[in-house]
């Protein structure tokens, strides 16, 4: 298992290097003038040239690439082209905000979706199963920004039950923070409810039809014992994998939701950086999101290995 984890971590480093390279290429390969983008169309060419020289963006691309990779290797993410401040503190603050929002969204959606999926699987083809499937398909086909806008208009503006801005006041306590995050988290949770519930349902139906479940039932175990000891663990394997991917996705920022609720998480921060050609922020942000993806998928692989002995044994080999 230790070997498996070490191999995965090594592979993660390679993936992060590839990710940083891709971001660098995307940010640099298209014809653009960083100085011009930062200073705007009305700045004089001399000022633009001076800024490009100061930022080093007038150097050959390979020199910039080598410099960028060397900095990343030494965990020096550099300074923002826009603010001149180190990019890491601002990005970590944005990451913390994104983590709170994604965490609350997952907290809202995972238990409900798993329970709904298992409930539907046990009542396969009955009206209650159809209802869960329909609800899941419907909720996952409405984009977050539509749900978010409806929530803002109805819950925030019309009834004024919850704040329409997601950013809580400075030093707000946890209940206040949750109150502020509830609407955007709900908008995100509604979409992911569908994915997770349907995945859980499909996994549970497969397991419920398997020989070992039938054997367990025929052995005389109660339904709850069968569900707990045999179905749940195996049925949730694909669900865990889906959740891991969603964690990375949610953390990376649902830009539309962040925009609607004026929440400055990773999505808005990265968009702001991309619009202003702030390459250090963009690269560091992509690396942070990449690390979260890696950790989420690694954790899910470990959980899956723990849940399924066959995977554990394969990993051991």
């Amino acid at each position, binding site marked *: 298992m230790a070997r498996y984890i070490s191999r995965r971590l090594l592979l993660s480093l390679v993936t992060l290097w590839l990710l940083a390279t891709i971001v660098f290429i995307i940010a640099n390969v298209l014809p*653009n*003038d960083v100085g*011009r*983008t930062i*200073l*705007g*169309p*009305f700045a*004089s*060419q001399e*000022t633009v040239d001076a800024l490009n020289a100061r930022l080093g963006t007038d150097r050959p691309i390979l020199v910039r690439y080598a410099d960028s990779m060397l900095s990343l290797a030494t965990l020096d993410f550099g300074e923002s082209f*826009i*603010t*001149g401040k180190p990019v890491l503190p*601002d990005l970590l*603050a*944005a990451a913390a*905000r994104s983590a709170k929002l994604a965490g609350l969204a997952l907290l809202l959606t995972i238990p409900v979706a798993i329970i709904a999926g298992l409930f539907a699987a046990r009542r396969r083809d009955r009206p209650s199963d159809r209802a869960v499937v329909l609800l899941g398909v419907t909720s996952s086909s409405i984009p977050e920004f539509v749900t978010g806008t409806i929530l*803002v*208009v109805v819950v*925030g*503006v019309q009834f*004024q039950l919850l*704040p*329409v*801005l997601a*950013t809580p006041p*400075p030093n707000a306590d946890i209940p206040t923070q949750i109150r502020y995050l509830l609407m955007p988290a709900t908008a995100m949770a509604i979409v992911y409810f569908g994915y997770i519930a349907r995945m859980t349902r499909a996994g549970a139906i497969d397991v419920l039809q398997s020989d070992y479940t039938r054997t367990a039932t025929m052995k005389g175990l109660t339904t709850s014992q069968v569900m707990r000891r045999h179905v749940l663990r195996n049925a949730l394997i694909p669900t865990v994998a889906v959740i891991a991917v969603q964690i990375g996705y949610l953390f990376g920022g649902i830009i539309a939701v962040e*925009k*609607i*609720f*004026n929440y*400055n998480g990773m999505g*808005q*921060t990265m968009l*702001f950086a991309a619009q*202003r050609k702030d390459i250090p922020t963009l690269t560091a942000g992509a690396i942070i999101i990449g690390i979260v993806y890696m950790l989420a998928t690694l954790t899910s692989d470990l959980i899956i290995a723990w849940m399924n002995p066959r995977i554990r044994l394969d990993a051991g080999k």
Partner: protein
Amino acid sequence: MVDSQFDKVRRSTTPLQLDVVEAFARGRLSRREFIQRATILGLSTGAIGAVIAACGGSTASGTAAASKAPGTSAAASAPASAAASVPAVAGGTIRVASQRPVSIDPIAMQDLGGYGITAQCFEFLCTLDTAGSNIAPGLALKWTPNADGTVWTFNLRQGVMWHDGTPFTSADVVATMERLVAAGNAGLKGILGPGGAVATDANTVTFTLLGGNGNFPYLVSVFNAQTLITPKAYVAGTTLDKMPAGTGAWKLVTYNQATGATFARNDAWWGGKTPLDTTEYIFFDATGPMVTAYQGSQVDAIVQFDVLSGKSLLTDAGFNVIATEAALHRQIWMRTDTGQFKDKRVRQALALTFDRPALIQQLFQGKAQLGNDHVIWQGYPYYDSSVPQRAQDIEKAKGLLAAANVSNLTATLHAGQLLEIPDLAVLLKSQAAKAGITLNVAVESLDTFYGAQWCPAKPADPPCSGAAELGIVDYGHRATPDVYLNAALKTKGIWNSSQYSSPDFDAAFKQFQTSVGVDAQKAACTKIETVLNDETPIGLAYFYNYLGGSSKTFSGVYTSALGQMFLSATSKVA
């Protein structure tokens, strides 16, 4: 009595001030223009009132007009009591929605978000009057030019303290000006050189300019946003949050670029005790969420919004819209050196298709003023309204096209994806079609538009010679039209996308730059307006208002057209 006061004013004025007084007395300036110009030249409130009264204005109205004007004693002595007529509750906080600042370095900042935050703490020599339209005494109580406008003496307000308790002096002003000159502040470039500002004594600064300039107070005012006065010890490149300071009504308490900023009352402010205890700025990246935040009762004021995103605010009974008339405009450039618009009759024809009132109504719900295909905005004191306003005349447009032997004119109208510009392009297309002109609208990202259509970097000489034949470009508010004239219209100007080159215009612009007296400035502007309207290198259909506002539960909020919201007189309505 009145005449004796008038004579007293005449005797005590400088030649430039006297020139304005005489121009008003002889009916060459309207009362509004007189107040505006007299304020720029540093005439006192009492003097303005005396002149108006002596020249036939009623004392009451004259006083009222003067009290609205910059430089009045009301504005100068007690800004915090400006909203005193509305029943108010002491204390409280106002929550302001503002665009996220890119930088709050008071010298290097270039965005409205930064202007708004820094102006809460730092102040200008000349601030904004409470009517939101002109300059008023700020850290300078009085300013006086010499005979030819080359030397300006500013008398500073006494008893002003920095937030840390040290006294504000002329040394702070001189140090600030040196930093601005070194940084190449756009407004002061070519106007003030190194060593141009000298402290005559602790409360007096003398500016010796590189040439005569009748508008200099504008350039050290709220209308030149980087000229905030910073302490002598301030180091260029320092942001406000790194060195919180200022002489203004508010002290910075917290600042987070990601979320917002909070300010607390400066109890030692020279203007007195502000009605509110604190202010809170919440940062946004778009107008839409600002509007919903107001509707959801999470903000009380919005620094700036546009008509398209904030339409609901214009009809909201609980929202007080502040529509500040400004020189904000769009220029529809037409290449004058080559292509289909080389003949001025073709350019005039296109301009004659503009239905300006309809554009203003459809794009701004009436919150704009008519443009007349020149850049001299109605709010400038030297604007001449006698130049005939161009209106839609389709038959005349067809006649001009026929005279120029042009038929089936087809052109691509390039427009950047910015605010109302794509809609403007579509409306212009439909209006031009009435005269048989086919415009194909190309809406492009701003990067593409600025980089490839408006002023491509290459070929570099002359600047903008790679510009497209026809397009719409945006221009922000300027306190004087020099930038528009110098960069966009002068021969080889750096933003001259129409490649306009006119000896008549260049001569008129030179005359405008070097003139300081009323008659000379106005004569130069008349010439500029006439030449541009006739030669039509650009179409200019409107100057639109800067829109901001606040909930009616607050009074005394006013804004500039540069993102600065003034809250020192703001209070909660009882």
